[in-house]
């Protein structure tokens, strides 16, 4: 016979479970409905005809309705360019802030942190002028470069590099590494969880970014998914809910599937990087 805990903890667990499940279902419901609508004809969808036949027509219509492949490619290129630039810039700056003592460093750091609050979104007008002036209007670099010097990234990298034990740095130096060698062989590998978490944040942010690309893209050849989706979803003459749901599902599918497959690692990366 095994001694059992009293009744109270089991009751709380039951209440917790009930609460958590309810909230979870409420939270996921919109997405489920969108999926449902995407696979049904419009009238079945809006009338909740549970017997309605499942169909792929909406996807066919949506797929033919816009150059999605191009949009996917653009978005993919965009997140790659943004991430690559961010990794280089934030690594260098984070390293400087974490490991180099020089006058003015702390003031500079505060200035960088200020940028956390000077949102690129708020500066759309002048940034748009700047991007035009630099000849980057309607290019993937035009969308990407303003995000390269991410203050959040610099902050994270500094944090990660600071938490690398000083001994590792010194051991590498004794073994003959230059400052770059130390950065490359010690700091960068040690900050891997942070890189991973940051990459995830960056990719999902820029996969989802809308306002800025809306403003600086002009053509199909640069337009990312989100802007494409918004154009697709707001035609002059009216919308078809099922087709829009299909397009929406289609455009979120890659990220959603990636997330569902890797959600454990995704969440873990966040937790391990200790972002807070």
């Amino acid at each position: 016979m095994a001694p059992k805990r009293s009744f109270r903890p089991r009751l709380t667990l039951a209440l917790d479970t009930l609460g958590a499940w309810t909230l979870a279902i409420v939270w996921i419901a919109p997405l489920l409905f969108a999926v449902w609508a995407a696979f049904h004809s419009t009238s079945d969808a809006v009338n909740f005809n549970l017997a309605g036949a499942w169909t792929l027509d909406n996807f066919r219509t949506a797929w033919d309705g816009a150059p999605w492949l191009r949009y996917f490619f653009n978005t993919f290129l965009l997140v790659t360019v943004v991430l690559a630039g961010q990794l280089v810039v934030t690594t260098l700056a984070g390293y400087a802030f974490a490991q180099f003592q020089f006058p003015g460093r702390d003031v500079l750091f505060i200035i960088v942190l200020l940028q956390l609050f000077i949102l690129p979104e708020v500066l759309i007008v002048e940034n748009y002028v700047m991007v035009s002036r630099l000849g980057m209007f309607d290019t993937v670099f035009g969308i990407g470069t303003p995000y390269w010097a991410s203050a959040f990234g610099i902050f994270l990298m500094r944090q990660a590099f600071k938490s690398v034990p000083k001994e590792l740095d010194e051991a590498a130096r004794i073994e003959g590494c230059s400052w770059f060698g130390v950065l490359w062989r010690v700091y960068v590998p040690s900050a891997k969880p942070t890189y991973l978490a940051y990459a995830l944040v960056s990719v999902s942010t820029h996969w989802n970014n809308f306002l800025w690309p809306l403003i600086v893209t002009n053509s199909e050849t640069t337009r990312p998914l989100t802007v494409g989706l918004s154009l697709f979803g707001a035609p002059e003459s009216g919308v078809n809910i099922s087709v829009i749901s299909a397009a929406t599902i289609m455009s979120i599918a890659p990220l959603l599937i990636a997330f569902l497959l890797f959600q454990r690692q995704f969440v873990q990366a966040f937790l391990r990087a200790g972002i807070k």
Partner: protein
Amino acid sequence: MNDLARYERRRRIMYGWMLLSPALILLSLFAFIPSAMTFWSSLFSRGTRRNPSEFVGAGNYELLFADPTFSKVVVNNLIYAGVTIPVSIIIALAMALWANSKIPARGFVRTAFFTPTILPMIAAANIWLFFYTPGLGVLDQIGALFGFGSVNWLGRPETALWAVIIVTIWKEAGFFMIFYLAALQTIPPDLKEAADIEGASRWTYTRRIVLPLLMPTTIFVAVNALINSVKLIDHLFILTKGGPSDASKLVLYYIWELAFSYFDRPQAAALTVMVLLVLGITAAIKFIILDRRTHYQ
């Protein structure tokens, strides 16, 4: 021998600046210079064929204050921030506590909470549009089951902003949950055990230990939520376009409209300057006051 130390120092300074230069150049190009330019252009009137641009000082600001839409969007944005920030924080906290407890199907619950976060706001808005549409929408259909009449959620000034707020909370809470979850996992389990032995109830433990220890996270999340309440407007493009009668128009959307729809860059600049000012004050409060206070270690 002092030369040695001095040489070493100089080398470090050089490297430091070298490493920082890409970031500084980019920050200047896309944050600091544009900020300054925004301020500068907010001092000039708009140039048209009839009235060339001229220096007007605070003129644009005066115009803005005279503009009823301006006060409307400010009030809207205050409501938007005032509701989305606390509500999404509270929901995120509840989610994190649940997602961190030993309930069945925890993986599903976590995924459900977090999934909205990875959707583009534009896509989320499309989905919610389907929810809100009067007559056809899911909300109305559910309401009909309980005998409520059709409600035009996005089409009525009383409800439009709230409809937008709900979408924002839905999108944000899961994201904030992750930060709380991370923070919860850094709380050593023996604190809970120590409290158990002292006879603290779950509620006491949560209130007296967990919440205070989560304070830095709460501040971080609150600042993020505040920033989002300024920048998260993508769904307006799909859901309401700021209507009806500006009932759901937010500041950034208005900036966009001023600049790209009305071609009134100076007004947009003036409004931008005010937003930057508010954000700057927030930044100061965060860095100077809050960060100092929460460093208990």
